[in-house]
């Protein structure tokens, strides 16, 4: 076919339209409009992947943070000012996360950062927070590198605090659950991303003194998950339980494969994906499916109120991880602002270092490395393990 001269302007118009659609749909369709409106508002910059493979977790991350901001404003705001939120899409990429953090700080003039989602992104964003001396609350990224940096170079990274569990704490929580279930041999399977590998190694070290050992470990590529072989191999070693570490959609596919290979093998899902109640109705429950969460409905009145509020607003309950911890991050930040009477980092950092901040999972206190105290000891935030059943979920650990 040849293009006639008369059709060319129309064609060019179409191409321009296509170009526009190519670059802008993720912006106007996927990114919620949380831009600040009032000049005197206190702004929180929230960094999460709203597109790409981790968009599901990133979206619930932003939804939960929005809920916390609304809650803060319903309580009268912070020293007479409204709190607003500016969400930035990191796309699950370190370079994008860093440039978006820079934009939030220098152009949007946010007073604090909450995020990011992946450990790699968060380590990158830490540099922006340190360079601009701005408070940054880390909700879900678990790598030990974050708090190690604070410990080693306190003067530079003292603005960074983590409300979520670090990898050693996470391994301790999982180890306590495995002991409670009388597990001796487990299979550790997950997406081949950084925190999974670190967690797998950490868990093996932490549970060894309890006589628990991994009998099979495998990581699949998130882009091409070879589930069949991993599921068959995991089932073949007959572990007492499979620990499934995958924050994405692949956990659903893996669970289906595993249940076909070994219908009676229990699974513990960490990372939040299988905490989604919308999935629970269609996943195979021929054997227990456990989910680890920061908090769950029924753990405390505050947790129940939060879950009901989230469900009322978004139509489904939170998964307990990628939504609950960002909610906690914003809640802790707002509480610190109120106590400090200022949003200036120099005033907020000492308050965060020495104060206690009630959240839905318990009271948050930070140690010298600015890590919230999760674990099994007295005063620690303990997290929750639930089991899916056809008619809903049941809390199984810690014993209540």
């Amino acid at each position: 076919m040849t293009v006639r001269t008369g059709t060319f302007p129309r064609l060019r118009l179409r191409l321009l339209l296509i170009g526009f659609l190519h670059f802008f749909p993720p912006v106007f369709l996927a990114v919620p409009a949380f831009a600040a409106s009032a000049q005197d508002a206190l702004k929180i910059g929230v960094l999460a992947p709203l597109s790409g493979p981790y968009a599901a977790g990133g979206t619930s991350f932003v939804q939960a943070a929005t809920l916390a901001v609304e809650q803060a404003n319903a309580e009268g705001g912070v020293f007479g000012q409204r709190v607003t939120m500016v969400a930035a899409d990191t796309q699950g990429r370190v370079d994008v996360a860093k440039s978006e953090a820079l934009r939030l700080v220098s152009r949007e003039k946010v007073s604090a950062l909450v995020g990011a989602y992946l450990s790699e992104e968060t380590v990158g964003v830490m540099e922006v927070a340190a360079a601009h001396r701005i408070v940054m609350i880390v909700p879900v990224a678990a790598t030990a590198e974050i708090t190690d940096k604070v410990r080693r170079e306190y003067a530079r990274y003292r603005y960074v605090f983590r409300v979520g569990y670090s990898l050693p704490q996470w391994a301790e929580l999982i180890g306590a659950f495995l002991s409670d279930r009388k597990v001796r041999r487990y299979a550790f399977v997950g997406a081949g991303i950084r925190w999974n590998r670190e967690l797998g190694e950490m868990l093996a070290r932490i549970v060894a003194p309890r006589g628990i050992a991994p009998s099979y470990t495998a990581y699949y590529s998130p882009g091409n998950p070879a589930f069949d072989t991993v599921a068959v191999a995991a089932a073949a070693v007959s572990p007492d339980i499979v620990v499934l570490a995958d924050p994405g959609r692949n956990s659903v596919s893996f669970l289906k494969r595993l249940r076909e290979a070994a219908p009676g093998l229990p699974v513990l899902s960490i990372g939040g994906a299988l905490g989604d109640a919308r999935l629970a109705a269609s996943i195979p429950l021929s054997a227990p499916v456990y989910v680890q969460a920061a908090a769950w409905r029924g753990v405390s009145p505050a947790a129940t109120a939060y879950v009901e509020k989230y469900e009322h607003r978004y139509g489904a309950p939170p998964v307990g991880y990628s939504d609950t911890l960002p909610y906690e991050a914003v809640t802790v930040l707002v509480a610190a602002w109120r106590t400090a009477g200022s949003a200036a980092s120099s005033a907020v950092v000492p308050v965060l270092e020495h104060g206690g901040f009630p959240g839905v999972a318990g009271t948050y206190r930070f140690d010298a490395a600015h890590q919230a105290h999760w674990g099994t000891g007295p005063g620690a935030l303990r997290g929750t393990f639930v089991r899916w059943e056809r008619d809903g979920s049941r809390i199984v650990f810690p014993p209540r």
Partner: protein
Amino acid sequence: MLLDGLFAGGTYALMAAGMALILGVVKVINLSHGAFFTLGAYVAYALAGRGVQTPLAAAALAAVIAFAFGVFLGKSFVNPVRTHPFALPVGTLACALLFEAAAQRIWGPHPLSIEAGAPWIGPGGLVIRRWGVIAFLSSAALLGGLRWVLSARPGLPLRLIAEDEEIAGSLGMNVEAIRYLTFGGACAMAAAAGALLSPSGAVTPTMGRAPLLLSLVVVIVAGMDSVAAIFLLSIGLGIFGNACAWLLSPQWSYVAMLAAVCLLLSARPAGIVALAGRRD
């Protein structure tokens, strides 16, 4: 494990055959093909939510919807733009991204799931996936039908347009209409594949990306001339990927598969079944 490779590969062949049809007849690279795969999966999910759990019903409905969308896209966008070599891949990619964003808006970014049903237990305790058997047989039947159509009289216009559009036009064939109808038919095949495979995993807005890449690889290696070659190569890659994951490591299976494809292409740059010297 071998059966799994067979089942998944057979279904991806359906998508790859659609891609080959578009490449052969319309002569464009359709990067929105994966979006139609996703559309099929969401149709299956919507039907399952209304109590219709039959993959065949979902595949049929998905094919009809995708055909309508495909014809619209082919007529309004592909046909007018197809002579611009860079505009069309970019444009179809834009369509795919637009669809992903729309799907995210409608169904949300979180994974959805369709109940797969209990597997069948064969002789010696062999586990045979119900959805796998249904998807494989449906795919084989559809590809058999396509092969028959292409080799019989009804497929003559498609073969002629693939060979020489000008001659086809001079014989009175409506080349433009055949092109957009072929585009719609190929989109219907991708949607059917998505509906058939949907119970195997999670349904998400971006689930069509991996099958798109796989079908492109299959078409490049197998060439566009033989439906049977596409079918066999898809199955071969499915089994090869599983075998590599088992023998090497799950993370190496993809790399090994792409390495094998590169080796094949270096030996036969025109594809493994391309007939040398067929065209002057």
